[in-house]
């Protein structure tokens, strides 16, 4: 799971049931757009920036998730650039990367961990 140096602040986002299985949705967390993915087939959750670093468009939550040699990833819907959901690194060979966030589920609610302001 994703880690953050300092102990994160957990922000509740929405009930688990509102997220599509094997898909993503965008959450507004303290004014930031964060893509949250419910990776049911791996029984894992991931979160990252919603903004594609290639075009700047707020679209990553609409991307398709999957894996590349076991590494969980999301492919941007604009040009299919793939990013690791663990590290945020671009795995289609580009320099740029995205920020990832830890996800925590408690009592049927999805929480995103962000750094203390």
């Amino acid at each position, binding site marked *: 799971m994703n880690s953050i140096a300092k102990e994160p602040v957990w922000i509740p986002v929405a009930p688990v049931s509102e997220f599509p299985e094997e898909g993503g949705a965008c*959450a507004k967390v303290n004014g930031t*757009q964060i893509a949250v993915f419910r990776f049911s087939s791996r029984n894992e959750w991931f979160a990252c920036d919603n903004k594609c670093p*290639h075009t700047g468009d707020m679209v990553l939550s609409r991307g398709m998730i999957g894996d590349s040699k076991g590494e969980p990833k999301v492919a941007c819907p604009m040009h299919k650039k793939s990013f690791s959901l663990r590290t945020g690194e671009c795995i289609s060979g580009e320099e740029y990367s995205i920020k990832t966030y830890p996800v925590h589920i408690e009592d049927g609610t999805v929480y995103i961990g962000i750094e203390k302001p």
Partner: protein
Amino acid sequence: MKRKLVVIGNGMVGHRFAEKIVEFGGTEKFEVTILGEEPRRAYDRVHLSEYFTNRSVDSLYLSGSDWYRTNGIRLLLSQPAISLDTVSRKIVTSAGTELEFDELVFATGSSPFIPSFEGLDKEGVFVYRTIEDLEKMMSYAKGISKVAVLGGGLLGLEAAKAVLDMGKESHVVEFASRLMPRQLDEAASAILKSKIESLGVRIHLQKETKRALGESSFQGLEFVDGSILDVDMLVISAGIRPRDELAKNFGIEVGPRGGIQVDDELRTNVYGVYAIGEVALHKNMIYGLVAPGYEMAEVLAYNLCSPGKSKQYLGSDLSTKLKLIGVDVASFGDALGQEEHLPIAYTNPRTGVYKKLVLSPDGKKLRGGILVGDADAYSNLLTLYLNNVDLPSEPERLIVGSPSEENSALGSLPDDAKICSCNNVSKGDLLNAIRSGACSDLGGLKDCTKAGTGCGGCVPQMNSLLKEELRAQGKVVTEHVCEHFKYSRQELFQIAKVKGIKTFDEMVRSHGMGNGCEVCKPAVASILASIYNEPIQKHREIQDTNDKYLANIQRGGTYSVVPRIPGGEITPEKLIVIGQIAKKYELYCKITGGQRIDLLGAKMDQLPDIWRDLVEEGFESGHAYGKAMRTVKSCVGSTWCRYGVQDSTAFAIRIEERYRGIRAPHKLKSAVSGCIRECAEARGKDFGIIATEKGWNLYVGGNGGVNPKHAVLLAADLDEETCVKYMDRFIMFYVRTADKLTRTSAWLEQLEGGIDYLKDVIINDRLGINKDLEAEMESLVGSYVCEWKDVIEDPEKQKKYKHFINSGDTDPTVLFINERGQKRPVDWPKKEAVVN
């Protein structure tokens, strides 16, 4: 003390012999001397005609200038041997040099055969054999314009090419009734003749020459049939004569029609004297080709260097493949069918292709064959022939079925041709990456070269190149969908159908691995849609992004909406409604290339509302977002147009409504034109229909895009019902068998047997599947639902279009500017990535 080895002759075979002696360590054992008659060391006589173009012998030399010296071989040029004493074992050269020998090799080659008719002593008559011959020809040719070559064999045609390259009018005169009479039959010759003639060489067959005309200089040829060929220069290339005169004069046995008699170890009747190459007569054969000479050179060099062990020369296969004046010609085995045999031949005068198989009488073995114009099958056929392999039950398939046009087009591109223009990757870059072994699949190739990672338009070409190159390397070409499935799309289609698999999850668990990705998920989604035709929102998360949102994602993450306007026909009322809706949601309007109206700039959360308004006014989804049937363009046809011969608009509407929403491996476009003027551009479509006086012509496999392609005729003058039936079969056959993201044009090119095979399947039911194809199509047509309607009737489905899961806000980052009176998204930041 070293033994003395003397070689007479420094042609191609003599040189190869020297190389092999060096390779086998023979220079330790022998003191080697080579005599050459010509003033220069061995050069490539096969490519002699190149001398006309580059005028340099350097590129023709077979060795560097000090090769002989470095290897301790004495090379005496311009010194033919003139006498020989086999008892005292000495030869004398033209310079008077006396050379002793222990072993003597004749590699004297051949001289041009000179036919016997009067007048050959005139100025302007040449033979074609050495560089000196060429130089004389070139200097004489300066003042003349028309040249005849006597001899229509391999060498003669080469010479004719040389004449053409000199910029002269080129004629070939052949005694026999066909070109290359030893390799080709009449039909092959006819094809080759027309090809060569189209390049500007004039061919005269069945011409027996009576005499050469002219006073002191050559002025033309008179033939036995009384005709006259008015030319100013003659090049004789009518066959070869072994250079056996020295041997014959000094007691070495020669054949009745020339050539030094040798046994299987290339030995003559005199101990320690051998012959190789074109001068050697082995089992009554003189080989006028270089390859057999090379084989002889190797056998003899080996035997001389390895006493006690001996190899045998057992004769050569006369198979040849070459490019003659730019035309591929290959011939192998019993090409002319001299034994009892079963011939199968394919002739296509239009493309200039002739292919013939000579089979054993029972049809099971390949005995020989001829290929003209397209010799791609040569290596495959030669393997079958040389290994005496049992043939498949339909051996004709070995020569029918043409390889993909796109592949061969790709093959003929130069290495610096740009394939990926986004990342500036050339064909050579791709080939290097594949050949280095670094990438053996498309993903790897993208990673290595970056090609195909921009707009992706070059991916089909990358794929073809990859497949072709891997095949050329003899590697198995995997057509796996991606790392998650070791199956092709076609195989997955069958698996889904046979096993009744209805979800991606089931598919990946039972036949795949991992979690899937953006390649296999949409491929499986398309397969499921083609088999079951359930509303695709049921499998929303495996749809490609446009299918997932039933709209086309555009810059800024906004969407465009295209309602269906079948055949491009629309009432004023409906036009007004579209305008009102566009105005209500502030959408940018644009007429599409497919005769519809695109409404751009919708935010994701607006989509269900826009659709609701459109559906209420009688519109439905136009599937502009899908790898699916798109639009059917039409002209106004006979209802309005003074030239129209059929009602193209009505037919286009019928077709669009029949096939609307059908999912396919790639998008499908169609058009109907009301007459031959083709205003609807039907031949630029996956399937297009053009009206004739008698009915409809159906064309398939066209597209615009990266590689524009005209559709080809599948069937002509069809009535409407038959046309629909053929379209049903064609579409379903494509949907079943095409690879993922393959347009019909690429699919058709890759289809073994091409359009002829497709006709056989669609029209003659070659595979016996037409009933199934029609039934499958009926089921798709019958289960159509408007995908927009499906969403606006279900509040649960509409939730997915909110921008935020935890807020009703819309995306505040989407910005528009005004241009020409409408709004459009702001430009993307230039080049540099956006940093948070």
